[in-house]
């Protein structure tokens, strides 16, 4: 691959919430400021097209709007497809992009069930193309250094992780916050320990929002080598000191045979205190910017990315098991790893 910027097709502007548009809120700005990428086209699903978001954006960016999303995938200028289509079409869109010979960045969750993730993983493996699920929280600077510290043995053999991932405010997801947000802390715990989960116990509840969707989940995971972890994840009401849909609590404690590592992902930060509110700011690439570094490196090197579809699959297996456990009230064993088949 040459030094030229990779051509990006923005496909879809939907998410798990009614007003969720990670394509425009997260990925477009990150692609725009990344020297390795250039947005070359916009496409949308039939459902999305009716809102004409794609057409307006294409006009604004001065790039073509594909007549259909399948047309967009045939454009030779496109190297990478950024997929943010509605969850029901995600598997179809991702596999079509891969089969059209394009690398894919997929908004989280990659798919809503483990079975769907498996399907995507199989096509990615078959085509040998990059399929990067947007598990971008593991690229947070505090978490990045923690991953290296744990992998480097700084706390000895890790035996427990406690994680809290609580968003304050923003629009709740109709699919529930376990489906919407769960992937972030689960992915970080898996990346920290490197240990697959064997058993899941969970409690899934709703405290802040109307309707049937859950907004607080507690997951009790048992990993290989007897490592245990506990994850709280959810969306609470808005707080004065947290930007809407920002993280009110985001932390990990890793206990090891020889030490303890406390990671507060609210840091690093310059604290800013004002009459109206208190906040924090920091300089440097965002977690999504770092995710794009990984995408670029994988595409240009011609190798698969980490995280990859297998990581998304394992997260989906854990989420599926959590639902089963919450329904039955008892821990659920995960099916044996399919490591061998990949």
């Amino acid at each position, binding site marked *: 691959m040459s030094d030229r910027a990779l051509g990006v097709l923005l496909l879809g502007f939907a998410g798990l919430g009614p007003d969720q548009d990670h394509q425009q809120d997260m990925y477009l700005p990150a692609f725009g400021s990344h020297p390795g990428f250039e947005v070359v086209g916009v496409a949308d699903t039939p459902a999305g097209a009716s809102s004409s978001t794609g057409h307006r954006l294409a006009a604004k960016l001065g790039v073509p709007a594909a007549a259909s999303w399948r047309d967009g995938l045939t454009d030779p200028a496109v190297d990478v497809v950024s997929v943010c289509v509605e969850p029901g079409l995600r598997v179809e869109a991702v596999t079509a992009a891969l089969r059209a010979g394009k690398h894919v960045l997929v908004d989280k969750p990659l798919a809503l069930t483990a079975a769907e993730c498996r399907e995507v993983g199989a096509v990615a493996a078959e085509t040998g193309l990059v399929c990067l699920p947007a598990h971008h929280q593991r690229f947070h600077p505090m978490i990045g250094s923690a991953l290296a510290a744990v992998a480097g043995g700084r706390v000895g053999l890790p*035996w427990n992780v*406690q994680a809290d991932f*609580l968003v304050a405010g923003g629009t709740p997801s109709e699919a529930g916050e376990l489906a919407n947000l769960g992937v972030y802390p689960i992915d970080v715990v898996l990346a920290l320990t490197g240990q697959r989960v064997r058993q899941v116990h969970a409690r899934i509840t709703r405290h802040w929002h109307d309707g049937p969707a859950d907004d*607080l989940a507690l997951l009790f995971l*048992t990993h290989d080598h007897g490592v245990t972890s506990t994850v709280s994840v959810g969306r609470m009401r808005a707080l004065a000191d947290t930007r809407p849909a920002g993280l009110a*609590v985001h932390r990990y404690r890793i*206990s090891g*045979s*020889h030490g303890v590592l406390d990671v507060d992902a609210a840091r690093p930060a310059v604290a800013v205190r004002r009459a109206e509110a208190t906040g924090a700011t920091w300089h440097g690439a965002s977690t999504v910017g770092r995710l794009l570094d990984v995408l670029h490196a994988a595409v240009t090197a011609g190798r698969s990315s980490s995280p990859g579809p297998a990581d998304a699959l394992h997260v989906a297996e854990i989420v599926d098991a959590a639902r089963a456990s919450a329904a039955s009230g*008892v821990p659920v064993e995960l099916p044996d790893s399919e490591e061998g088949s990949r």
Partner: protein
Amino acid sequence: MARHSVIAGGTAGQPSLGVVIVGAGFIADHHGAALRTSDRAHLAGIVDVDAGRAATAGRTAGGVPWTTDLAEALARPDVDAAIVCTPNVTHEAIALQVAAAGKHLLVEKPLSVDVPSARRVIHAFEQAGTTVMAAHTHRFYDYARAVADAIGGGAVGTPVFARLALLGGWIWPDWRAWVVDPGVSGGHALHNGVHLLDLVTWWIGAEPVSVYARGRKQTAAELGIHDYLEMTIDYDNGASAVCEMSRGHRPASLDRRDVLVVGTDGILQLPTDGWGSTVVTESGTALLHPQASDGFAVQLGAWLDAIDGGADAAMTPADALRAVALGVAAERSIERGEPVSVAEVLGGVPA
């Protein structure tokens, strides 16, 4: 007006309560120190099955009478009450003896090591008409009261999720120590776990429904107890709490308290990295803890209030029974690998 001392204490003509300490070990010293600061109660005697320990404790306290015979101490008319600081499995028999003697009791946690036994103790004091309180000391520490005050004042609305972790390294003696013998301590959930199970339940202010616990023998695979415990309580109002009690963390000097309470209206949190000052000296960096009230003295005051029968007791017998039930549920849950209902442990009999 002349200033003078009143022999054996007492305020405003009220006689000071004579208290005998039973079990002159580690924690007895804290109760002795609390008694020394009180003008409502005083140390009247020491009982220990080990004559040497009893004698030393009596001498250290300035010549307080000591004995190895509890009955003898309880028969003394100047003894009104006992503070029991013996290994957990001995609490019931000693408590029943104190009740039979018609004296008041502050018993170290846990009240007892199983539910039927805790019930027998409570029943005996009901019959005797004297006061029994279990020493859940954390309820009387500044941090715990600050959290309770804030929640009580509506700071976070209704609590829906709480985390409480007391993490530390190995502080116990060797294999011969009773604390590592589950037959004597009841297991770590009953021994230390009850502190957290009680405190978080007090904070949340709802009835616990079930406990899911995971235990780990971190310091040595051969341990009979779990030196690391993670205990999750589900409450009848939909709230949950995750409690971690550890003596298995490294470095052993780790002394960590973590509190997070998430409520319908907000979040309350104590800083995990401590709230003291930092002292950096030639020998390294250390934390300088802020001045705080002596939890044991505050607890003693609350017990004396309960004896006086004034306001609601700060820690009722029902609270103590519930703490035992939660501890038993945690131990059972670890054994079974799934949640255990509190109703099962309580045997369907109302507290």
